């Protein structure tokens, strides 16, 4: 084996090793991003999805929040919606699943910043939501606060914010 092939193989091995370490031991920001993407998947549901599946998804989504979570959102018509506690949130999720025919939620942008204690983080994210059968895209900018409890990042606070301030 000539020298260049040896260098190429060594480089490939180093890259593979780095990728393996990155996959096996992701940093906190990657973990938080993955958790928020999981939330988007659990909140979304297809039109023909069974009630059992939707209820399970809502429950799994609620598990990503802390029991004392507070949510303050502004509806499209500038009405305030608030939830206090995971049970309240779960009920709201179940209601949404009952009344909407289908919902697709995506978080295309997530900006995570960790506090110095590395047990608290805030995430700014852009949420895109589309109701089944409606052409209109709903865009929401959210700020979430997450805390690490029992080695798990839980969402403790959700509120919306605007890039374009009136």
């Amino acid at each position, binding site marked *: 084996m000539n020298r260049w092939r040896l260098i190429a193989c060594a480089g490939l091995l180093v890259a593979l090793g780095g990728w393996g370490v990155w996959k096996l031991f992701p940093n906190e920001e990657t973990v938080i991003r993955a958790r928020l993407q999981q939330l988007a998947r659990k909140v979304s549901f297809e039109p023909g999805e069974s009630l059992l599946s939707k209820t399970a998804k809502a429950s799994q989504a609620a598990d990503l929040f802390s029991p004392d979570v507070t949510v303050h959102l502004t509806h*499209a018509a500038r009405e305030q919606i608030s939830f206090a506690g995971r049970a309240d949130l779960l009920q709201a999720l179940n209601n949404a699943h009952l009344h909407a025919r289908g919902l697709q939620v995506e978080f*295309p*942008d*997530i900006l995570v910043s960790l506090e110095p204690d590395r047990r608290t983080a805030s995430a700014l994210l852009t949420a895109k939501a589309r109701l089944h059968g409606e052409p209109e895209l709903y865009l929401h900018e959210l700020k979430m606060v997450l805390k690490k409890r029992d080695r798990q990042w839980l969402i403790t606070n959700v509120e919306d914010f*605007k890039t*374009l301030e009136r």
Partner: protein
Amino acid sequence: MNPTRQPAPGAAPAAAPAGGSKSSGQTPWWRVVLVGRRPKRTLVRIAVLAGGSFVVFSFALVPFRIEGSSMEPTYRHGAVNFANRLVYLVRRPRRGDVVAIRTTAGPHVMYLKRVIGLPGERIGIRDGTVFVNGAPLDEPYVQNRRRWQRPEIQLAADEYYVMGDNRRMRMEDQEFGRCKASLIVGKVLF
């Protein structure tokens, strides 16, 4: 008895049947179509084209698809356009420019709005008419406006005031207002 034709000793072999993979001494036509007569050059061309496209469409002309009706009638829902990122390297946004604005969280979703107010100006809306430093703004691109009301505000040195052209919407249904200059991605190409 039918005599069979035997090739004479030393004669050239018969040509391949029509539609065969190659004509004598030439590259097969399908290979010419796929990778050209000189595959190495074709590969280099493809690499240059891919790299060039990546650079152009990432750093110069950012493509996007318009979703929503806030810029109607100027821009329709579903249309594709580009944000020219280079233009604001040489000058600042001007009033009337239609710009793409990224959200605070990242660059994958952008607002498409028109620049109404420039840094340092006072902007207010009375009965649907925009006032800049107390004077009404002529907006020929707006058709059928609702009677929107917003108290006058003063823009900071790094802020622009942006709005959609569709003023038939309810004010609550449209995103508009102040935005930081750093969030303006570029000017819409056409």
